[in-house]
């Protein structure tokens, strides 16, 4: 069973319905939330959203990779990656409906 994809527009619609701002302003605020989180991460800071999860930036060192098609070795440069750790509340809610410990 394939599922639906939720986008910014759906988040803006939810804000519009819950808070009663205009659709335009609701969309702007969704954007502002994502921008604030992004800016913080770009500064190298972590972002913790209680009962949802935390985003942190990890520095990866240089390593030798391999082109899987040609087998040629290529250096993978040091880079920063974003790691999301879901909170227990989120993990539990995602498993709520499923039968834990049974078939």
């Amino acid at each position, binding site marked *: 069973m394939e*599922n*639906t*994809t*939720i*986008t*910014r527009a*759906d*988040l803006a619609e*939810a*804000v519009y319905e*819950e*808070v009663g*701002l205009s659709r335009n302003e*609701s969309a702007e*605020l*969704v*954007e*502002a*939330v*994502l921008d*604030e*989180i*992004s800016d*913080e*991460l*770009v500064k190298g*800071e*972590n*972002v*913790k*959203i*209680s*009962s*949802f*999860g935390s*985003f942190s*930036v990890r520095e990866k060192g240089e390593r030798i990779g391999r082109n899987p098609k040609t087998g040629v070795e290529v250096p993978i440069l040091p*880079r*920063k*990656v*974003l790691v*999301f750790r*879901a909170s227990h509340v*989120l*993990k539990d*809610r*995602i*498993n*709520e*409906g*499923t*039968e*834990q*410990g*049974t*078939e």
Partner: protein
Amino acid sequence: MTKSELIQRLAEQNPHLYLRDVEKIVDTIFEEITEALVRGDRVELRGFGAFSVKHREARIGRNPRTGESVPVAAKRLPFFKTGKGLRERLNDEPTDMPPKEDSWY
């Protein structure tokens, strides 16, 4: 930055909004993402990243200390993949377009 600091900052940028409304906005966004994941839906926020749910089949695990076999139930795990725009910004790569205009992959 914590959720309350995020709320604080947004409130400062939007002095025409009540603090309780800003709280509600932030809570609504994360609640909406959570509910989508609970339904098994995917949340795609271009330039930022995508949340999805991965299924893990039930398996026989092992207690690493005793070597004893233990059944591990099937479960669903939330997963996040960083979007192209944010990944480039993290690595100081020039993004000549605002993140939300970027193509996803």
